[in-house]
């Protein structure tokens, strides 16, 4: 146990771990993370199985990286705690001892004499120190006086606050890792969606895209209503950077798109032998619409927003954007199939018609409309409050450590015949130059009273 404690209280261990964690982190940025086995095989060839086994492909979530982080936190905790006791005593129960020979050995020190006894000289020494906002502790033995003057003592604990912050952040990270949930919700305008995780329903009242004058997207907005226990409890519009928060769940505007499951469109039917003939058929997928000639009907069989023939020689959609919308229709007359055709909105002359019997129809696809949907990322992360608390400690601690340096001046006043010999020394772990400057001013001010 003692051995373990000694081992983990070593700063050398901390430095070795820090270097290993840094190198591992660098490695993780050059090997793409969390891709498929096939991608790794293509990229690294025979090396791929090894990388996967060693979890270099999911490095930051691998057992060994998390293990390193765990050892590092243990190291930080032990290092901080084992040093805290000494610091605590130094801060709150300091020894006031000032030994003239030791003070003289300090880098920042001075020695001079004043008139009268130490008791006569002490007030001007103290007032010079107090003038520089030092707090003074005093002890006296056999007519000699020893002074301990300190300021910004809290600065001693800056690094401990930083380390506490880091540990709290790591705890937050562990909590996030185990208990955070994330899911992408897609809601079409007007629809209500069950969100069982949060025990609520979410209704998208309106979805809106704002544009800049040059046409670039400025923002996406979803106007949401939260329904909790059948009651409408909250209405809020969310946009990028402005999520909705409800009972620990956050809803982020994340993406948008069109609902191509239920598009509406018009099919314009024309006849090659009758230029007057024009039927505008309002329809959707799965519907059957009759033509005005009263004997032909059109079945709408399929719709794709971005038509492509894939590698398996099947019709598919390349994207969810309406780049090349196409509809598959079938014509029937008296219950018998007449033709089937892919009709393209952007290429009206390119209809691929397979006719069973001769006919005179041509078709165009017009006015495609689909309900926009909003992609909303739902997230719940109980670790996040630890993260923010840790960040506050971390930042506060750093500013205390670097901008609030503790300073200590010890003074020994001893009787030397009818005069007082004064030896003073200054101690600062950081900012020695600044203390030297201040120390010189203080001693100069004391001497001017002498």
């Amino acid at each position, binding site marked *: 146990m003692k051995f373990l404690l000694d081992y983990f209280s070593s700063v050398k261990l*901390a430095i070795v771990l820090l270097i290993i964690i840094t190198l591992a982190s660098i490695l*993780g940025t050059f090997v793409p993370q969390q891709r498929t086995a096939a991608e790794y095989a293509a990229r690294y060839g025979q090396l791929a199985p090894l990388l996967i086994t060693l979890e270099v492909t999911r490095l930051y979530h691998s057992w060994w990286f998390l293990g390193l982080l765990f050892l590092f936190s243990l190291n930080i905790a032990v290092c901080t705690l084992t040093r805290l006791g000494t610091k605590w005593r130094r801060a709150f129960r300091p020894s006031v001892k000032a030994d003239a020979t030791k003070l003289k050995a300090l880098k920042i020190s001075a020695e001079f004499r004043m008139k009268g006894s130490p008791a006569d000289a002490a007030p001007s020494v103290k007032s010079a120190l107090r003038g520089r906002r030092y707090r003074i502790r005093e002890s006296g033995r056999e007519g000699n006086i020893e002074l301990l003057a300190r300021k910004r003592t809290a600065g001693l604990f800056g690094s401990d606050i930083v380390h506490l912050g880091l540990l709290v952040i790591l705890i937050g990270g562990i909590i996030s890792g185990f208990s955070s949930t994330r899911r992408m919700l897609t809601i079409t305008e007007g629809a209500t969606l069950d969100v069982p995780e949060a025990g609520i329903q979410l209704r998208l009242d309106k979805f809106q895209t704002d544009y800049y004058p040059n046409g670039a997207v400025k923002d996406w907005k979803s106007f949401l209503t939260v329904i909790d226990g059948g009651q409408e409890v909250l209405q809020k519009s969310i946009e990028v950077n402005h999520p909705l928060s409800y009972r620990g769940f956050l809803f982020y505007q994340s993406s948008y798109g069109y609902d191509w499951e239920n598009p509406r469109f018009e099919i314009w039917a024309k006849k090659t032998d009758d230029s007057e003939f024009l039927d505008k058929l309002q329809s959707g997928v799965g519907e059957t619409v009759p033509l005005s000639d009263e004997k032909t009907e059109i079945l709408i069989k399929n719709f794709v927003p971005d038509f492509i023939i894939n590698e398996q020689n099947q019709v598919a959609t390349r994207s969810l954007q309406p780049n090349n919308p196409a509809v598959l229709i079938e014509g029937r007359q008296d219950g018998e199939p007449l033709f089937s055709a892919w009709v393209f909105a952007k290429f009206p002359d390119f209809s691929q018609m397979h006719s069973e019997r001769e006919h005179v129809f041509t078709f165009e696809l017009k006015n495609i409309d689909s309900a926009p949907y909003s992609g909303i990322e739902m997230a719940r992360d109980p670790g996040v409050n630890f993260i923010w608390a840790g960040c506050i400690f971390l930042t506060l601690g750093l500013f205390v450590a670097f901008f609030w340096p503790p300073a200590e001046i010890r003074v020994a006043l001893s009787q030397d015949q009818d005069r007082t010999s004064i030896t003073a020394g200054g101690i600062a772990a950081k900012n020695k130059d600044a203390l030297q400057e201040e120390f010189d001013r203080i001693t100069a001010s004391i001497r001017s009273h002498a």
Partner: protein
Amino acid sequence: MNESTLFALTFIIYVAAAFFYFAFIFSKRENLAKVGYNFAVIGLAAHTVALIMRTIESGHAPFTNMYESLSFLGWSAMLAYVLIEGKFRIRKAGPYFMLIVIGLMALASSPLMPSSATPLVPALQSYWLWLHVSVTLLGEAFFAVAFITSIMYLAADSRETKGTAKPDAISAAKLDSISYRCVAIGFPLFTLGGLVFGMVWAYRAWGSYWSWDPKEVWSLITWFVFALYLHTRIVMGWKGRRSAVIALLGFLAALFTYFGVNYLLAGLHSYA
């Protein structure tokens, strides 16, 4: 006068500052360094006005693409240098530092960098843009000063050990101390701006404070390197050569976070 004319003027003033600083190095006339310093301060003022004009013209923070963020980094670096020189009188660092700033400005105005003020994509429309980027780059500017003073340290140290140091040269010990002071200012700023504000913004925008995105990882790496610098120095008493080398590596990591990640690694953080 519009923003780009003012930017060009700033550039010319910085070049003049560099000219006088180099004249000082070669002629050893102290007053030339003063002229250089004054030009640097005037350039900084012009640069400040240019950034303000850019902000007014575009209606958003002046660091949303590579041109803007390079110009802002140049500004931060200049500010850090003017403050450090004002305090420590390290005139000899002036010429080298001006070269870095001029390099940043030249890179910013190169045709490869998209410079037109484009409207902000939705993810960048947040006041966290101001907080995150400005505090981070200010922190990195102090790392840049530490980089220069560390290089100067290494040169001064080797001259001192060989006994070829000139009597009026800044001592290696002083350069070492200035490097430490710069890291001590830069580190808390970088932590607050780069890591803390970055996490808060990521949580606001993406719903996740940390995603192990390459840019995030590289800013953590930068942070680790400077943490190493501070611990080896404060706890283990390392100084001089080894400290200087760690400070150099730290700034290189910061540079890689800033440029390398965008051009070499793909990720979420694809703006600048």
